[in-house]
């Protein structure tokens, strides 16, 4: 276990050193992030014109959802995208062989090799919005609600990771999975708004098929102290299933890996 922590530390410190070369990139990411946030909050505000509510969410509590979304988007940009979009290159160039030969779990290696520090401001800003908006909507935090919030964020992240990893792992068969991740990104954008704002059929899909609700709506309910215990329980089971499935799928995919150029 300690070996894994040490590996992460080494990976991320080299990532930090190599990214210092591209400081302009960092600035661009920051600008793009601020623009995106500004735009999304503006679009969200259009739903509330004339004193309306969005699927029984008030303006402040809907902002909590935006915060959770920003936080997860930051994690995606920092961790999921840089690592998981590389898998296809390892497959294509045959360098996956070297990864598989290393005395460390290959899924672990592929998932944490890189860390893009440009995602860090988004993560921090996302969390700040969550707490600021929660306070604005008159929430008082307790140890219990913070604990439930952290657990539900974890549930959300594990589901997000597993779905990303499943698509990335399918690159063992299909060399171009970039477009599939674009479809995923487009669908995940639905998480910017509370699940109760959608028509019934989409609510069903976004809870059970592609569990967007577990990514943003439920963590937001957790910090607002409104999350029902059975949803948390169901989320724990669902995220475990997603994670186990991603591991099994990776083992299965590796059986079909024939290596390029050999």
């Amino acid at each position, binding site marked *: 276990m300690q070996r894994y922590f040490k590996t992460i530390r080494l990976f991320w410190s080299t990532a930090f050193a190599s990214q210092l070369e591209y400081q302009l990139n960092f600035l661009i*990411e920051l600008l*793009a992030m601020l623009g995106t946030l500004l735009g999304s909050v503006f679009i969200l505000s259009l739903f509330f014109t004339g004193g309306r509510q969005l*699927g029984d969410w008030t303006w402040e509590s809907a902002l909590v959802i935006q915060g959770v979304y920003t936080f997860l988007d930051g994690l995606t940009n920092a961790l999921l995208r840089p690592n998981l979009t590389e898998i296809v290159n390892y497959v294509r160039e045959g360098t996956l062989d070297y990864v598989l030969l290393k005395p460390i779990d290959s899924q672990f290696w592929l998932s944490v090799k890189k860390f893009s520090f440009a995602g860090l401001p988004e993560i921090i800003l996302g969390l700040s919005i969550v707490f600021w908006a929660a306070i604005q909507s008159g929430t008082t935090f307790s140890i219990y609600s913070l604990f439930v919030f952290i657990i539900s964020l974890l549930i959300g992240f594990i589901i997000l990771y597993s779905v990303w990893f499943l698509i990335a792992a399918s690159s063992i068969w299909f060399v171009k999975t970039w477009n599939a991740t674009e479809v995923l*990104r487009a669908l995940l954008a639905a998480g910017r708004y509370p699940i109760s704002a959608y028509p019934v059929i989409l609510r069903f899909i976004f809870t059970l098929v592609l569990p967007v609700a577990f990514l943003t709506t439920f963590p937001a309910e957790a910090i607002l102290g409104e999350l029902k215990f059975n949803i948390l329980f169901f989320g724990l089971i669902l995220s475990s299933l997603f994670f186990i499935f991603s591991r099994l799928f990776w083992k299965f995919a590796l059986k079909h890996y024939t290596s390029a150029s050999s």
Partner: protein
Amino acid sequence: MSFKVIKTLLTTQYAYMLEYRIEIALWALSGVLPFIMFSLWSQNDVGNSFGLNDIGLARYFLSAFLVRQFSVVWVVFSFEEDSLSGRLSPYLLQPLHPLFRYVASHLAEQATRLPFAIAIAITFFILNPSSFWLPSLPQLFLAYLSTHLAFTIAFLLQSLVAALCFWTEKSSALERLIFVPYLFLSGLLVPLSAFPSNVLKVAMITPFPYLINFPAKVLSGMPVDIFNGFLAQILWISILVPSVNILWKLGLKRYTAMGA
């Protein structure tokens, strides 16, 4: 440029694109954002506040989806790859501006995309039968024209960023700075008539509303100032063409043929 060159470019690029049908189908599917937004606006009865009933909203967002399908641009990504891998050098030696090669591959990709876009539109009509409409022939022609002009503007805007490849290795990162205002000001997420008037004024001095909002309104048959819309589109093109030309020429002087 002779007719023969155009024909050869288009047919080879089309043959090339046909190889990637599944990818292109997925890519077509990744444009679902207008549908997600449609479900939100109609479910929450917001449409009325900007003068659109459910049917109007449905038509607008389907049109926005279609316009997006045929005006999507990725030239900066191809160009960056070609420039970094040194593939650009042989292109530059040919008696044909390299950008035309990318124009041809975009048009070929649009042709490959057409059946998938139609399939998605039919699915949409099955799910929302009341929103079905067939635009009249002149309307269809004007929508076709304005979508092509929108594509031209988007292509030129991205070429401007692509030309920066001559200066920096990662110009595709700069594309994000165009994409973000495009996303919110083009009308992909909400018809621009929903904007408060001061935001609308700012939006209208950018090229973005003419990329989705204007062609989508024409296609869906919403009341729209056709003359001024086309005028603005042509104006933007006439500003962007010389800009791209100048930047390209300046950049070419700095080209060092990376990787070759």
